[in-house]
Each structure stands twice: as C-alpha cells, then as structure tokens.
C-alpha cells in the first residue's frame, strides 16, 4: 500500500511543489531548496521502488509482464479510459534515470538569477510528465503525460536558452508535436479496433494484421521523433543548442528515451506483426543515425551540436537494438537508454558549466581548460569515454549487448548495419577526442581569472553521474536481469 501511494505521489508531488511554490518569493533561496527537496524525495522514492521491484522480480521470476503496485481507477468513462498506473522493471529503471536527471537539472540551475520561479515550476511539470509516462499503463494517461512536456518545453528553451533560442525552441516543440500527433492517431485507431486503452489487456489481444501494417510505422516513427530517428532528427541539434543546461539534460537524457521506451513498450509490444514487417525497412533510417551521425558531429565546432549529433548516433544504436528484435538486442537497447541518459546528462551538464564560464561553445575558441577547471574537464572526458564505449563505463555494456544481440538477427540488412555500426565506433572516438583535445588540452586560451573554480553543486552533479556510469558499467548484471524480466514478455509477443 505504501509503495502504491508512493507511486502515485511520484507524479503528483511535482505538481504540488509547483502549487506550493507560488507563494514563495521570487529569488528567495528557499525556492530552489524547496524544489530540490521535492526532487530529492522523488529520487529517493524512485530508488526505493527500484529496489522493491528488483527484489520482487528476483524472487518471483515470470514470463508475464509483472506490474507492481497497480492503481486502477475509473477515469473518463465515456471513452473507458482508466487511471491505471503501475511499475515494472523497465519503468522503474527509467524512473530512477529521470529522477536523477531532474534532481541534477535543478542543481544545474542553482545559480539562475532571473525568473527562477517560473523556470523551476515548468521544470517540475516536465518532471511530472516523464514520471507519468513511465508509470502509466493506460494509453490515454500515457499520452497525456507524454504530450504534457510541449506545454513547457517551448517557454523553457525560448525564455532561458541561448543563441537562436526561439527558432530552436519552436523546431523542437513542433517536431515533437508531429511525433505525438502520429502517436495519438494510432492510439485512437487501437481503441477503435479493440475498445480498450489498457496496455496489459491490449498486449493479450492480437490486433488485426492489416491494421498493424498501417499503424505500426506511424506509431513507431511517432515515438522515434522524440528519439530523433532520421528523418525526424533535425529538431535535436537546433533544440539542444538553444536549450538551457537543465533542459538539454532533460531533453537528451529523459525525453529522447521516452520515445524509445514507447517504441519498445507500446509499438513493438502491441504490434509484433507490424514490427516484423516494418522494422527491417526502418533499418535504413537507423543506419543514418548510427553511421552518418558521428561523421556530422566531426564537422561541427559547437559543443552542443557535437553532443546533439552524438546523441543522435547513440539513439541510433538504441533503435538498432530495437530493430534487431532479439531479446538480447532489446536488452541492449534498454541498457543504452539508461546509459545514454546518464552520459548525455553528464555531457550537457559539463557543457553548461563550461559555457557559463567561457560564454562560448565554440571548441576552437577554447583550450587548456583542464588546467583551469580540472574537475569539469574530467567530468567531460569521462562522459566522452562513456560515449565512445569504454569498458568500465555504462556505454560499453550497452553497446556490446546491442551489437551482440543485433548480430543474432540473421537478416542481411541488419547484419550489414550492425557491422557498419561496430566499425563506426572509431568515428565516435574521433569526434569525442577532437572535442576534448581542442577544448581541454593544449595551452590555456582564456585567462584563468575568468574561469571560476568548480562550485560544490557542480561537483555534486558530476560525481553523481560518474557514479551512475560506473555502477552501470561495472555491475551491469543485476540491471540486465531486471530488464530481462520486462523485455521477455515483449519478445514473447513477437514470436507468438
């Protein structure tokens, strides 16, 4: 019962935080403390839930989807939508990821001088939306949470971003809206076909094959928009480069995973036949992400552009895992979601810290920052290493699992793209090292006085991410087993 209430609290708490923060005076230090405390509570509860789920999954393994702490209430009777939330292995891990990124995101805006109240308020709504996405198992509820972020994303980026912020914010918001429109259309179709929005019930119903044939690509691509799959990736560079640090962290760390999560949890789970028909063709798009993405990153000078294209290529790997349709590849994709969440969070956090000091993101105008701000520099390098798949950090575990898993798919196209993907890890190394070398190494270009020392909260952010990356990199087994319990039912649906 306690866990059940806790689960409900996860998405309600951010809203309550916003509500209660209204009377707090602008620029009072209590404001951010209050928000941080709330995010901290959510973080702790999500970790607690993860542990609970872990114990439960280990003690009663099952081939069915194990939904814990369900709450099922009647909601919109007219369309028989229910308020149906619960948690399983995959969602519990995504929750922890989201909670960490939200928590650190609030820390990353600790020194925001103007408009903190509005920023944090909207940021909490973003938080509520992702928590909601990961715990809702009713399609309407899911969509409500999924689309909610459009409410705040534009204002957060256009109001607090940098550079061409209005353009970037619009591009991001609208492209994401295209995706969610496609999702909504298919959800409605599913409802019209079956008369239910309940994900668990739907997973037991086989949708008509002709319906799956038309609906799957729309749904999959709809989700893939927010995961910046080619040809819907164009929002990512523009949006990330404009977004403020916390929002970049959120967008790349959590929001982009929401799409992949949806692809796995809903698109592939509910429409296995469609997946079998379409995913081999979608591999062409995926190839763009995986193979061309790093090359584009090589050619950019703006840190955020580089990171955005790096995200694009890493998310391509997630999709490679999904498209390979083997349990191992699915697990790799899920691991990559989490791993990339942490590493990109760290990336954008460090980039934000660097930008706040140098006021430029052009790597050719920096140099030798390692001398002045070694802590942040090390953080960046570790994120880079995780990105290029260094063993011991989470990226390697995920990528290796994806590669091994997707190689198990005997289809020629999948093989070719897997092989090319494996070979393209060199390209990843090239742009990451180029970036680190230009920016951190070499002689110091900017005078040291202009580069203040690393602040305590920045240290905290970096350390927490590095710990996550290392834990996942060194002890992947419990997480892998946990994820398997969620992924196995999806795979069973696929081969049924």
């Amino acid at each position: 019962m306690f866990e059940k209430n806790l689960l409900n609290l996860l998405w309600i708490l951010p809203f309550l935080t916003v509500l209660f923060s209204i009377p707090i005076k602008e620029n009072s230090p209590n404001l951010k403390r209050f928000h941080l405390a709330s995010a901290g509570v959510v973080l702790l509860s999500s970790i607690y839930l993860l542990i609970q789920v872990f114990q439960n999954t280990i003690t009663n393994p099952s081939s069915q989807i194990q939904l814990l702490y369900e709450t099922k209430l009647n909601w919109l009777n007219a369309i028989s939508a229910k308020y149906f939330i619960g948690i399983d292995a995959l969602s519990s891990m995504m929750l922890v990821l989201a909670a960490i990124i939200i928590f650190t995101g609030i820390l990353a805006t600790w020194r925001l001088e103007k408009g903190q109240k509005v920023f944090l308020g909207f940021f909490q709504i973003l938080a509520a939306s992702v928590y909601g996405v990961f715990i809702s198992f009713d399609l309407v509820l899911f969509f409500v949470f999924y689309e909610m972020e459009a409410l705040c994303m534009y204002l957060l980026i256009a109001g607090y971003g940098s550079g061409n912020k209005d353009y970037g914010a619009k591009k991001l918001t609208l492209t994401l809206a295209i995706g969610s429109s496609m999702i909504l259309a298919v959800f409605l179709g599913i409802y019209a076909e079956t008369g239910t929005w309940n994900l668990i019930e739907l997973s037991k119903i086989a949708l008509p094959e002709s319906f799956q044939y038309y609906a799957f690509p729309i749904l999959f691509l709809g989700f893939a928009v927010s995961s910046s799959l080619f040809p819907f990736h164009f929002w990512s560079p523009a949006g990330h480069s404009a977004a403020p640090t916390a929002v970049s962290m959120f967008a790349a760390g959590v929001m982009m995973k929401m799409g992949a999560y949806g692809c796995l949890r809903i698109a592939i789970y509910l429409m296995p036949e469609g997946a079998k028909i379409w995913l081999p063709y979608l591999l062409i798009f995926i190839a763009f992400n995986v193979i061309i993405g790093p090359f584009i990153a090589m050619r950019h000078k703006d840190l955020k552009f580089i990171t955005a294209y790096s995200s694009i290529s890493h998310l391509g790997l997630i999709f490679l895992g999904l498209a390979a349709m083997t349990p191992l590849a699915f697990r790799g994709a899920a691991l990559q979601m989490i791993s990339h969440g942490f590493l990109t969070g760290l990336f954008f956090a460090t980039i934000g810290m660097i930008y706040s000091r140098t006021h430029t993101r052009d790597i050719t105008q920096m140099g030798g920052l390692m001398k002045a701000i070694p802590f942040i520099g090390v953080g960046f390098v570790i994120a880079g290493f995780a990105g290029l798949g260094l063993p011991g950090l989470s990226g390697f575990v995920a990528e290796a699992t994806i590669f091994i898993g997707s190689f198990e798919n005997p289809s020629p196209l999948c093989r070719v793209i897997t092989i090319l993907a494996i070979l393209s890890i060199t390209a990843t190394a090239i742009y990451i090292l180029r970036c680190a070398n230009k920016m951190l190494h070499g002689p110091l270009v900017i005078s040291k006085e202009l580069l203040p020392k690393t602040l305590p909260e920045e240290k905290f952010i970096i350390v927490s991410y590095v710990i996550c990356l290392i834990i996942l990199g060194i002890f992947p087994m419990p997480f892998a087993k946990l994820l398997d319990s969620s992924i196995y039912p999806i795979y069973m649906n696929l081969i049924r």
Partner: protein
Amino acid sequence: MITIFPDILILLFPFVMLSLKLFLKVSLKTQENFAVGYFLVVFVTLNFILLGQNHFYLSNWKIDSFGIFMREIFVLSSLLAISLSHNYFNSSVSLKPKLLNFSEFSASVGFAAFGGIVVVSANDLLTLFIGLELATIPMYALVAWNKRDSEGTEAAIKFILTGSVATAFELFGFSYLYGFSGFITFPEITNAVATAQVSPLLWISLLFIISGIGFKMTLFPFHLWAPDIYEGAPTPVTAILSVTSKAVAITFLTVLVLGPLHSVQKEISPFLALLAGATLFVGNLGALSQSKLRRFMAFSSISQAGYILIALLGNTPNAKYSIVYYLFLYTFSNYLAFFIFSVVGKNQAETFSALRGLSEKNKFLAISLLIALMSLAGIPPLAGFFGKLQIFTTAAENGHFFLILFAVLNNVLALYYYIQVLKSAWIDKPEKEIALSIPTKQKIIILILTLSVLLLGFLPFLSNNLSIAFL
C-alpha cells in the same frame, strides 16, 4: 415544469432588461449586475433539470439531454460575454470609443441565446430556421454595436450581406428538403429519408443547407467573412461570435444530421470529413502569420470549427456527447483567451505586440494565457485536449482514421501559431511600457476560467457527468 422554466426565463430576459432601462431607469452598474445575476440563476436552474428524459411542450418544443447541455452552453456563453463587456461599456477600450445601450446589448445577447435554444428544441424545419435566424440577426447588430467605430459597422455590413446570401442557400436547401420529403416536421422527414429511395433532391438540399450553415460555422470556403468581422466587432461580440454563433451552427447541424438525416449519415460522412479537413487546415494556415489578436482568434476558431465538425462523423450518443463536451471546454478556453486579450488591450490595440512583456508585468495573466492557448492547441492535461480526444475517439469508432491523422497533424500547425502568441507574451520584451490593471471582478473570473480549463479536462467530473446523461 422546471424543464421549461429556464427557457421562459431566457425568453423574458430581453424584456426585463429593456424594462429596466426604459421604465425603471436603473444605472448601468445595476443593469450589469442584474444581467450577470440573471444568467447565473438560469444556469443554476438548468443544472437542476433531470437529465435523460425527452420532454415535449406545445407538441414541438423538444427538451432532451443534449438540449439541456446546449442551453447551458448558450447561457454560459452569454453570461461570460456580458461580464466581458463590462469594460467596454464603462470606458474606451482598445483605442475604440466605449459602447452604449447596455440593456439593448444584453437583450440581443439574450435573444441570440434564445435563438440557440430554439434551434436545439426545434422539431420541424421552420422552427429550426427561425431559431437560426433568431440567433444570427442579433449578431449582425451586435457587430455594429459600436456605431462610432467605422470598422464595426463596416464589418457588420459585410457580415449581413454575406449572411443573407447564406440564408438564401439555406432556404434553397430547405425548399429542396421539403420537396424531397413533402413535410417539414422531423418525424416525417426522418421517415421519408429512412424509407423512401434516397434521391439527388436530398443531396442537393444537403449541399445547400450545409453551405448555408457552413457560413455560420465558418466552414471552408464559407469562412472568409470571419477574420474581418471578428476584427471589426467589439471584443465581447467577437467572443460571442466565436462561441455562441458557432455553437448554434453545430447544434443546427447536429439536430439535422443526427436527427432526420440520421439514416444517411454514412453517405454524408465523406462530405463532412472533407469539409472538416479543409476547414481546419485553412484555419490553421490562415492563423500562421497574423499579428492582430482578434483576427488571429478568428482563424483559430475556424480551425476549431473544423475539429468540432469531426464529431458529427460518429455514432449518435457519442457524437452528441462529444459536441457538448467539446463545446464546454472550448467555451472556457476561448473566453479565457478573450478575457485576457481584453485586459491586455485596455489601453492599446489588441495586437500581438500588446502582449509583449506580459510575463514580467503580470505572471498571473501570462500563465492564464498560456493555459488558455495551450488548451486551444490541444495540449494535455488541459481541457482542450480532452475535448479533441473525445471528438477523435468518436470519429475513430466509425473508422475515419485518415481524417484523424490529418487533424492531429494539423494540431502541430495550431501549436505553432499559439506558440507565436505565447512568444509575444513570454519571450519578447515590451516596446513601450503600458500599465496593466485588472479589476478584481475580472481577476476572479479569469481565475475561475483558468482553473476550469486546467482541471475540467483532466478531472473526470464534467466528462463523467455528461456521459451519464448521454451514454
């Protein structure tokens, strides 16, 4: 007896208002308070009516659940419009002279509401037609209410001339419908449509009727008047036009399509689907690059008309339910937006640039504006989303997937232009400082509307109450 009571109250309202002015000569303030109070009473009374039953008065005056909810919407819209007009009668707003003749104004609003009620209660073509005219003719006058503002009268002239052409269309349509069925009462027409061989006479009558009503509902391509008229009219009138007028039109269509023409709904649906798709697309396109708020709202409401038309593709109880539900939420969102515009446009023209710096001047208004516009754009968890979801679900049940896909993709365009407004309010810095003041009363109304838009969709209260009545 209580069932007919609200109708009588609304019917009496104009007379009472006129009497207040002519015989009692009470002050403007009293008149305003009285009008608002009167509609509040009617609204409350309406809520006491038992749902789920069909009542007939004078044989042809039909009161059913749908009718009651539509009454609530008309009353609500009138209530809000009259509160919105408060500023406009007391001072010059938006650089235009102040309005005069409040009692006649509110009487006209009352007449229009009654016209809507006639439409929804009608059981024969003639009553339907008169109701429609009763709802429309006051609008012509209301647009021209500000005689000292040449834009207003000019808009009214355009409105009434194009409107008369549309009336001619309608009359033609009715004449053919009459010619097809031989009767003007609904039961007989229903009979004729259901039993007789469906002939082109029916289709041409439908073509004319829908073209005529398309004018009032701003369907493509009969919507061209809307931007000019919305822009020229005083803001409260624009609000009524966008809500009451549209509600009357969709009621008219519902009464026809889901009533006598129910058995040929399947044959009409492609037409309706095309109309809906074209309307919402054109509305969205037109709104993309506007700079005047009321003109912008015109296009926005054109596209909303397209969305609401989609509901007519569904099965009867669901379609009616969706329309009512959507109209409720749309009323709240739309009026919220207009209230904010009227506050912002107090001392300046109602353009995008008037909104600049709103977030710094007044957070409350800025957030309300965000909520209103995002609700109109259909972003969850705000009310507008649930209205649209309901409509789409209704249409999906009859398999109109491609229309739905088209409509939801159009939402992206809609989001774009609502964001444009938000950009003015939240991002852009003001060009010149113009003080903003909100009277307490308006503040309360805005607060109530904001909360309604915020919660009415997500909380199942409204939706489930409505669904009990319909489903």
